[in-house]
């Protein structure tokens, strides 16, 4: 039992903005004062300190074949020693981290939940093995659907019931959390050396278009009433002029409604927010995108903010990764996966003086500043845009125009010409940044007990040495940037795991997965599944993950 005393709480979900209050914890949950015996409580003095729910990273590549191939390909990433082995594990990595380091580093910035954003379905046992090796945080994985042959087939046949049954089957087999879509149709075209360029390009051999795939998956997802919406990596990623495709894609869900959350989450939008017609005249399309997102009440996005320095591009968008390899000449790994899609991995370094990199950096910030704080989640698309350990930098930048002005001095002047970053006066408040890192990502994911501090919430709590009454983030951005990197406490499930910025205990979180089988007729696709498995190199009976293989699975049933 914990008694967190006199903290200054910001909890947007419950409308609390800087109130001095006590928080009580019992059995890993936040409870009413009357539930605990104060004499038995461990008292945590939070006087003049900021008390928040643990951060929620809803889009990061933290487990599975992509990041592990990245580690193998880049031993140079592993030379940073964050912690030597002792009572705790050795913790290694610059931007790519080992599994123990991933959990530790999240806890060290006060984050307690992280979602692997793209798991190849057949690789899901590998994804879960790695998730199981990440300490502290709660986890989930999103299997990738947008280039899976059964999805093409049921979309082409306009058979929504079968598509829903297939989604329910796939989520159960992969122990997945929701429907991820990466460059729908484009990765299948890559199997023939191509890509799709618009929402209406036909996918080879299937006669369906990205427009139809996205629309059908969103409708199926909504009819199943899954906790999370479709989570979409748009077509044309990384192509100048692509902001128009992004806007067109968002408009596909106009008129659709869900009372609890968005119906479409568009991810790492920075990579899909370029105006212009080539890399010579590329510019920001962030303002246009922000206008559209702000005008819709059913679309959310995350930033995909690049951080200057090393990064590794790794996505299910295999044709894009090949393009990046050709563009930079860097190492390139590719993995075509059965009838499910593919993936690619390419090292990258974002340089402040490089006009394109500086532009990308500015676009990420523009999105974070111009989009309403209840519609844009803070992310770097780890490790594509850079390390999540730099979230405090992004938080500080969003809150301080002065900090941005200082940073603008060191980046390519191309940014002045091609973006409006310098002219943006918006300074997000602490409350808004807490929304973007806690309550909003939890709502986007549909995790009711995360991202807030109300009674019944999981006792995932971060306490920082920031007194909102005294600190002016606009002027004292260095305080914000420094203090969010060293929580006084990170508490996970009621246990103190970080003290003064250092890991003090290793705990193990849960892995959420969604079971929607009750909502569908599983028999209806039985024969179809048998025929799909003709094209697999494994037997149907050996496909997927059973929950007893997992360290700590938690099934969320959809009724």
């Amino acid at each position, binding site marked *: 039992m914990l008694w967190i005393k006199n903290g200054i709480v910001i909890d947007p979900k419950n409308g609390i903005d800087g109130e001095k209050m006590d928080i009580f914890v019992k059995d890993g949950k936040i409870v009413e004062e009357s539930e605990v015996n104060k004499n038995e409580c461990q008292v945590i003095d939070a006087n003049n300190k900021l008390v928040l729910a643990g951060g929620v990273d809803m889009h990061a590549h933290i487990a599975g074949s992509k990041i592990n191939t990245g580690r193998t390909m880049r031993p140079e990433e592993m030379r940073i020693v964050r912690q030597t082995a002792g009572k705790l594990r050795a913790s290694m990595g610059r931007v790519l981290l080992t599994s123990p380091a991933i959990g530790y580093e999240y806890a060290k910035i006060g984050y307690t939940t992280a979602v692997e954003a793209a798991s190849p379905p057949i690789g899901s*046992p590998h994804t879960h093995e790695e998730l199981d090796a990440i300490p502290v945080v709660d986890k989930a994985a999103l299997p990738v659907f947008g280039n899976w042959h059964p999805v093409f087939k049921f979309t082409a046949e306009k058979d929504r019931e079968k598509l829903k049954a297939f989604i329910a089957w796939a989520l159960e087999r992969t122990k997945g959390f929701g429907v991820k879509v990466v460059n729908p149709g484009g990765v299948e075209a890559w199997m023939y*050396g191509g890509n799709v360029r618009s929402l209406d390009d036909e996918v080879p051999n299937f006669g369906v278009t990205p427009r139809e795939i996205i629309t059908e998956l969103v409708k199926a997802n909504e009819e199943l009433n899954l906790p999370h919406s479709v989570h979409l990596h748009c077509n044309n990623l990384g192509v100048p002029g692509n902001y128009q495709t992004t806007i067109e894609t968002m408009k596909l869900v106009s008129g659709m409604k869900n009372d609890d959350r968005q119906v479409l989450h568009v991810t790492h939008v920075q990579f899909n927010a370029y105006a212009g017609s080539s890399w010579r005249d590329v510019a920001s399309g962030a303002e246009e995108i922000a206008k559209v997102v702000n005008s819709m009440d059913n679309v959310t996005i995350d930033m995909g903010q690049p951080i200057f320095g090393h990064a590794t591009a790794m996505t299910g968008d295999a044709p894009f990764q090949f393009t990046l390899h050709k563009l930079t000449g860097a190492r390139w790994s*590719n*993995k075509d996966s059965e009838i499910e899609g593919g993936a690619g991995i390419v090292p990258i370094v974002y340089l402040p003086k490089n006009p394109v990199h500086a532009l990308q950096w500015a676009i990420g910030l523009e999105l974070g500043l111009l989009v309403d704080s209840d519609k844009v989640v803070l992310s770097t698309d780890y490790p594509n845009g850079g390390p999540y350990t730099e979230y405090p930098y992004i938080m500080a930048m969003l809150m301080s125009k002065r900090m941005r002005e200082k940073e603008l001095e060191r980046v390519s002047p191309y940014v002045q010409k091609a973006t409006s970053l310098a002219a943006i006066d918006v300074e997000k408040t602490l409350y808004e940044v807490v929304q973007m890192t806690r309550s909003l990502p939890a709502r986007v994911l549909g995790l009711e007990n995360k991202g807030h501090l109300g009674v019944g919430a999981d006792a995932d709590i971060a306490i920082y040495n920031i007194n909102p009454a005294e600190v002016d983030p606009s002027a004292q951005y260095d305080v914000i940037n420094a203090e969010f990197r060293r929580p006084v406490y990170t508490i996970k499930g009621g246990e103190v795991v970080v003290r003064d910025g250092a890991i003090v205990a290793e705990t193990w979180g849960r892995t959420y997965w969604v079971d929607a089988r009750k909502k569908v007729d599983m028999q209806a696709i039985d024969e179809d599944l048998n025929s799909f498995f003709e094209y697999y190199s494994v037997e149907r009976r*050996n496909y997927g993950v059973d929950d007893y293989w997992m360290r700590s699975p938690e099934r969320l049933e959809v009724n």
Partner: protein
Amino acid sequence: MAYAICTFCGNVCDDVEFDVNTQKGKKLCALGLAKFREKERIKSPMVDGKEVSYEEAIEKAVEILVSAKKPLLYGWASTVNEAIRYGVLLTEKVRGVYDQCASVCHAPGTLAVIEEGIPGGSLGAVKNRADMVIFWGSNPLEAHPRHPTRYSVMAKGFLIKNRKDRKVVVVDVRKTKSASMADKFIQIRPGYDYAIISALRALAKGEDIEADEVGGVPKEELAELAEEMKSAKYGVIFYGLGVTQSRGRDRNVENAVKLIQLLNRYTRWIIWPMRGHYNVVGAGEVPAWEVGYQYGIDFSRGYPRFSPAEFSAVEMLLRRDCDAMLVVSSDPAAHFPRKAVEHMKKIPVIQIDPFPNMTTLLSNVVIPSAVAGIEAEGNVYRMDGIVLRVKKLVDSQYWSDEKILHEMLKIVEEKLEG
């Protein structure tokens, strides 16, 4: 007859069946059947030749590992990921060196990944799409007998309806059994892989080469091959130890990857190694996520350092740089150079293995284990990284590798903290 998943080679065939009572199998190749059939086992845990309990053997093993200055923990390719994970954690705890079988076979391929990456695909992608398949320095019919039927030559898939839809080429220094199933066999002079790949890169780019022949292959034949590769819709090179263990080693693979990079500017090509043991991929993947590297990992400073040929097993033994050794599911005494084995004879050796082998003869502590895939379950990675969970078909008196290593880790932790 029970559904099984074969734990012999990197194919990890998951369509097989086996009956432990009658010892009969279905769909298993000769190699797989031999693995599944009963054979001589190590009867009991032993310390210095004397039969002891599991607990006593583990206690002794832990004592050896904890008191050693630099223990070498080697093997891992023929056990499940769960056991490998405990092995990695154990190595980190005792500040030893982790190395695995790849360091004497496919590790040059890993070095090539570090240089250039690996443009690859799953075996299912090959089965569905590949209209051109090249086996380069690999001999599937003898080393991976069901590879051609299940995945690569006769396999039917989404775009490939029968054998005629596929062109198969074998490149090797001798006419192997696999050459007989190929549409084209190209015999090259030993040690000329690199030069031939360079020639193919030039020819595929449309450049001329000055030589009339390279590595024993006439220029015309190479030009024809380059053209065929460019006009394939989806091609694959499956390379074997003929490439990684001949002159050039990792540079051969790196050059081949560059050829694949080039070909993807015209059409689609992938390349993949024909990995040997059923979970040698896992023996690299597990340490990669736990500590960042695949093999040759030293923990003596309390954090992992990777240095192939410094921390790989043979070199460690040749330098007499380790003072104890744990061997899991491997037989270095039979396969390592004589000088390396001589050092093994001088230091305490612990063996964990279901079957007696040459290493048993020089081991001070012998801990018999259950056979994964028959007596114990767990995750393994097929040669293409696809995960399968091998099954337990029958109960056994033997402890699994996973259980043995978990116990060892627990006792090591107690000793080090106590």
